[in-house]
């Protein structure tokens, strides 16, 4: 077998040397009843590389790949062009096949990269510090609520109706078992629920959670929410699912967010059918010891040279066990690397230009689609994603578009199957990958399907 270096004669020699009769001797502690005598039944036997590759090629062909079709999906996962050098670099064996950098003398590559990543994320979010990544945006969101609970010693969080419904679900799963209270609401085409949030923050509130831009693509100023939260001793948690937006709009930190979490997939990582992604987690300095996850810090070595280590580990499970700030261990290191490389390639100029380009394309698309009879753009404000209200239910329409080889957005019916008022909503994302032709094709198809 190609992955197993031991030859049969190696095995025999080694068994003899350690005084075992056969390999079964080494499994002597397994109770008789649980010992299997042959390979597990009902599973195939080994396969050649070629056979495996062909199997997957056949499966891959059953999927419509984003780059082969006009593509307008967003809602928490965005398709951007990722430079080829990113994927080349993350495949360097020294990055790909390294473990968590617990031995810093031979892990400076990963550590320095994490330090750079943390700085990039903190600056982008307008925060003092950021950690070395979480699983994804949705789990980071719950971790932020949980952290706010530890800080405020309160257990009620007020969630914006504009928070991604899957993020809400993840929080609900956890809150149900931790006896936390979540104040939730569903989105409304009429506008964001800033006022509801402000009204509902009270002395019991640990945090108010606002997505920016929100699930329908709207951009709202969070300053007033932050002010009210701080007045009541609560924290403002901002959630960013499209970090590219921050090349064009104010950072949440500027508006007073105490914790900012986000999904970093959009930069460097790609769609990947939902994972692995990379959770971004930043906060203001005073909360650093309540942060979940790994942190990389600068220090010096025995010769006084600058170097990096994982630090403040007394927050973490491997040191603090049941008293840790989170149970997270393995995080999303390689995706953080991809994010960081892509962000270094962009730089401030590139990120801002990319944001401007995305916005410009989205505005063009919104104008064009708004002209289609039976289509109304819901948003007053948006970055690269906006919501259409259609004259028909959106969910079947999305399938019809797919039949025409157009991946035409995310229907709100998929996200909110139980909210009648949203069934005609279609969330459309437009990034730099969308061409004029794509927009025309989409508009034409919509026109036909809606008439």
């Amino acid at each position: 077998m190609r992955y197993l270096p031991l030859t049969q004669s190696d095995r025999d020699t080694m068994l003899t040397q350690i005084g075992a009769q056969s390999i079964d001797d080494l499994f002597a502690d397994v109770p008789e009843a649980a010992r299997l005598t042959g390979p597990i039944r009902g599973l195939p036997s080994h396969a050649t590389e070629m056979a495996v590759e062909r199997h997957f090629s056949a499966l891959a062909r059953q999927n419509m790949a984003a780059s082969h079709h006009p593509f307008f999906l967003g809602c928490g996962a965005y398709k951007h062009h990722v430079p080829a050098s990113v994927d080349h670099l993350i495949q360097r064996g020294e990055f790909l096949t390294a473990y968590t950098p617990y031995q810093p003398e031979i892990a400076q590559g990963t550590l320095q990269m994490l330090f750079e990543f943390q700085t990039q994320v903190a600056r982008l979010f307008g925060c003092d510090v950021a950690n070395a990544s979480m699983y994804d945006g949705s789990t980071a969101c719950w971790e932020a609520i949980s952290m706010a609970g530890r800080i405020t010693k309160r257990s009620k969080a007020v969630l914006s109706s504009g928070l991604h419904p899957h993020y809400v679900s993840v929080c609900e799963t956890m809150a149900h078992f931790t006896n936390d209270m979540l104040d939730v609401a569903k989105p409304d085409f009429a506008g964001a629920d800033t006022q509801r949030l402000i009204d509902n923050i009270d002395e019991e509130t640990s945090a108010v959670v606002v997505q920016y831009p929100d699930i329908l693509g709207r951009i709202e100023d969070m300053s007033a929410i932050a002010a009210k939260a701080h007045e009541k001793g609560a924290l403002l948690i901002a959630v960013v699912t499209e970090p590219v937006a921050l090349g064009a709009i104010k950072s949440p930190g500027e508006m007073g967010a105490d914790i900012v979490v986000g999904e970093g997939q959009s930069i460097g990582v790609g769609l990947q059918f939902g994972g692995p992604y990379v959770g971004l987690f930043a906060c203001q300095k005073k909360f650093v010891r309540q942060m979940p996850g790994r942190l990389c810090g600068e220090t010096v070595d025995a010769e006084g040279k600058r170097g990096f280590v994982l630090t403040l580990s007394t927050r973490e499970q491997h040191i603090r066990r049941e008293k840790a700030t989170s149970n997270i261990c393995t995080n999303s290191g390689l995706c953080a690397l991809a994010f960081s490389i892509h962000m270094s390639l962009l730089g401030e100029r590139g990120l801002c230009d990319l944001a401007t380009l995305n916005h410009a394309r989205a505005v063009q698309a919104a104008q064009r689609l708004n002209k289609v009879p039976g289509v109304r753009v819901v948003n007053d404000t948006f970055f690269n994603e906006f919501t259409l209200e259609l004259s028909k239910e959106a969910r079947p329409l999305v399938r019809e578009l797919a039949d025409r080889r157009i991946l035409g957005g995310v229907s709100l019916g998929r996200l909110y199957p139980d909210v009648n008022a949203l069934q005609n909503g279609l969330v459309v994302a437009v990034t730099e990958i969308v061409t004029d032709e794509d927009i025309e094709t989409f508009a034409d198809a919509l026109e036909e399907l809606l008439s």
Partner: protein
Amino acid sequence: MSDLNKGGWRPEMTEERRDEQGTFTGNRALMLDEALIFEIGDSETTGVDLADFPQVETRLGGMERDRRIGLPGLSEPEAVRHYTRLSRQNYAIDLGLFPLGSCTMKHNPRLNEKIARMKGFADVHPLQPVETVQGALGVINELAVWLIKLTGMHGVAMTPKAGAHGELCGILCIKAALEARGEDRKVILVPESAHGTNPATAAFAGYVTENIPATPDGRVDLEALKARLGPDIAAVMITNPNTCGLFERDMKAISDAVHAAGGYVYCDGANFNAIVGRVRPGDLGVDAMHINLHKTFSTPHGGGGPGSGPVVLSEALSPFGPIPYTERFGDGHITLVEEETAGDRHPHSIGRMTAFHGQMGMYTRALAYVMSHGADGLKQVAEDAVLNANYLLRSLEDVLDAPFGKSGPCMHEALFSDMGMAEGYSTLDIAKGLIDEGYHPMTVYFPLVVHGAMLVEPTETESKAALDEFIGALRSVAIRAKAGDEALKSAPHFAPRRRLDETLAARKPKLVWPQTELAEAAE
């Protein structure tokens, strides 16, 4: 005659800037230092060219950014060099044996990398209509079938993002099952030797934890455990094979006792590599077990992640598994059970563990791995992993103390303590000495039940020659630690950095590069 440089300009760097070892740059031939992106890049440089943008009236609603962010950019050549040079300061499986106990640092096949990058998997959006992602759903479903059959369990929750997340999912399912029975048990029993994520997870899910006593031979003390069982015990969390490298002989009896007391058995499956294809946890009465695809199933660790932690579930717990999940119909069509249909099809679900479908990129790799090995090959994996560990154990136990060396064969890892080292020498010195020898050290100071623990896991992807070389190096270092070799106290000598001051890092945390320094560096 050239007109150039009539003024005779010269750079201001003739002065000697050589370090102790005599170089101007601080480099040592191929061991290259590398500055931070904040020192190299500047905010106007970019390594990405973009199309011109059409002029439009913005719809940003007055929220335009008006401050600079402070993100340095690099041209592509600078970026490629920066990250390539950084990478060279890392150790990795691709460089040599990586014997981190409990981490299963096995070879990561490159076929899997290729497959994960096929556009049909890598370039698909999680919210595409299910008709357009049948192949992607197929991968998830096929892998689910493999995991269920390999473990002999009833169901599997695929979405957890890593081992600890899988633990959380399993514990929540247990909590949900108890809730469904109308019970509110408060305590989870966890052995002291357990990985930190076990108690952390229990706490994260709102439980209090208590210790499970161990026998002197390194296993769960069945009688003591039984004595503690009762109506307040929600579950036990047991690692099997355990972190001392031993198989829990009484696992089935433990499960029976826990079940009899109305509790559930959570098994930490991080060490599944020792038994995959040879023992099915389902046969031992386990109710939930996470599988680290980034351990047993060869997906790369990536310097800390991403991983993937599917949890296999017993019949009792399966109804509580999270959404979304895949269901295959007779005609081969696959559907996704999520919010809309969960009410009918899966009413007891705990809900979502994560936004989307979990770690697709790891599923492709893991499925490619299990298909490559097949059921026969996976059995061989376990056997070779265990053989390699036992060979190491027996090759080292005369120079390193093996506290459980007499407790039976070890499984896929061998545990040593620091007993017998010279005064003032510790496990840390052995670890740092191994670095100079060209190895990543073993796991150190874990499990906590052994003093100065060294947990050595070679995995099955090491050849006998590689093991022998490692054994030689470790013996040499161990003998030096016993003899009190001074040079060992200051190891490593040859790594990119000498020992790092972790206390300083924690005392005065510098977690980000200061904003002001960018401006300066960029000048």
